[in-house]
């Protein structure tokens, strides 16, 4: 048992994650061809615009379900919202926010772009703390909008009336998952501007603008889009239910800052916070690069059902940095 623990703690999480992401990417993008269907409420961007995905993103269903008149909230349609959240949670609890770091195909793509950027020798940027705090609010605004806009379709807004159905699935319209992922199926049909109505035109314009920024951003900022991802915000609400946890023993932390430098998202608290045990922040994608970069024995740990499955060790640190 000790040998296995030692092997795991000394292992390269980077390599493990690289292969895990490849497998997850193929399951999400091409799973349907192999009759794989993980679920319809996945806590990751398993885009329904794909030809035969291995599952479906929770956010699309959520937007559809919130296209609901207020008087029907206490009905079977209202119940559908609750059941979909329960199914979402059933998948979410196992990996917690590691869905972002290990499964999300848009995240994986950005990691691949980071590798290309490194090969090209382009330096990356980090946001200042002030900007970081401002930008992280965007995902909550997007989360609120993707619920409020569908409600505005089914319910009359004073002075405006009901929104047209062209406002449907508003987040999907601006999500790079819709435009970029179908390309892996050879489907380029989402890379268009839809002129059928003004609303569609604006949404598809925004979608293509975000796509352009997504490709450009991936070359100067690690996980560029993840700062704005409403899925990350939604997951954060339920993070305490996650069986997979990232915990920190602040008494062992020397604030060397290695974990912060390793963090693709640039979360400062991972190094600065020595008070809280649970240090998963809303931007964290649980990639565990911080654990691999920590030289302090047992300072950072990955627990599943309170059992440590991976932890920072001095030996592992030196092995990985050799």
């Amino acid at each position, binding site marked *: 048992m000790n040998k296995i623990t030692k092997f795991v703690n000394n292992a390269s999480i980077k390599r493990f994650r690289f292969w895990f992401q490849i497998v997850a990417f193929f399951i999400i993008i091409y799973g349907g061809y192999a009759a794989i269907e993980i679920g319809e409420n996945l806590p990751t961007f398993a885009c*329904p615009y794909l*030809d*035969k995905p291995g599952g479906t993103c929770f956010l699309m269903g959520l937007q559809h379900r919130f296209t609901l008149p207020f008087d029907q909230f206490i009905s079977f349609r209202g119940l559908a919202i609750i059941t979909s959240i329960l199914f979402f949670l059933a998948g979410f609890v196992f990996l917690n926010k590691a869905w972002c770091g290990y499964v999300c195909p848009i995240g994986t793509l950005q990691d691949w772009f980071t590798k290309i950027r490194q090969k090209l020798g382009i330096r990356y*940027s980090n946001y200042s703390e002030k900007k970081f705090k401002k930008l992280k609010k965007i995902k909550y605004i997007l989360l609120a909008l993707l619920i409020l806009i569908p409600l505005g379709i089914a319910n009359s807004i004073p002075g405006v009336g009901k929104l047209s*159905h062209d406002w449907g699935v508003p987040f999907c319209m601006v999500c790079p998952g819709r*435009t970029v992922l179908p390309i892996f199926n050879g489907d*380029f*049909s989402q*890379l*268009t*501007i*839809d*002129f*059928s*109505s003004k609303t*569609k035109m604006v949404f*598809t*314009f925004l979608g*293509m*603008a*975000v*796509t*352009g*920024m997504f*490709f*450009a*951003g991936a*070359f*100067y900022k690690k996980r560029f889009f993840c700062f704005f991802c409403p899925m990350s915000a939604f997951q954060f609400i339920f993070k305490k239910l996650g069986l997979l946890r990232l915990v920190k023993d602040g008494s062992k932390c020397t604030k060397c800052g290695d974990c912060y430098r390793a963090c693709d998202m640039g979360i400062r608290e991972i190094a600065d916070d020595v008070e809280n045990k649970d240090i998963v922040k809303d931007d964290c994608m649980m990639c565990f690069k911080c654990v691999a970069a920590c030289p302090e024995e047992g300072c950072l740990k990955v627990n599943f059902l309170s059992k440590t499955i991976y932890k920072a060790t001095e030996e592992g640190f030196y092995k990985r940095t050799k």
Partner: protein
Amino acid sequence: MANEKVPFEIVPQVLWDDKFHIRTQTGDNIKLYAYSYGKPLENAEISVLSEQQWKKTMTADKEGGVEFQMIRDYYPKDWARFHRSHRSFMIFEAEYEVVENGEYQGQSYNRRKMITTMPWKYSPAQDDYASYSAGLTVGAVFFVLTIGGVLFYRERRRKPFLELDFEKKPKK
């Protein structure tokens, strides 16, 4: 799938097996099959009739099938009235004649003609209202603007070379 208990039926190609969010669009190639008690009917006459009374009649092949391209039948007066979700309707009609002697309601007959219909609906093609060139232009412009913006920002933050001369009085 053809039903073995149905004397005469039209079975369209099963599009839903290909994709969940399938819908027939203008320009799509549609295959229709005519079956009698589950067996394909060669030489059955299959017609398609649009809302604007456009009609095409085809003869079924050995497998009882015909193929045709969905025509564009939706021309709103101006672009503001165009709806991407508009549904145009079509009627599929199949005819087949069987030569046989028999009796029906006390009257003898020497042939039997069978007709069956099936309604169908379809949407405008995406090419009618979506533009790749506009989409890719917007994407490319924002790609270049983002890259340019980042380079400009980085350039601005770079401190200019400053040679310090301690004997020189600083400029005010």
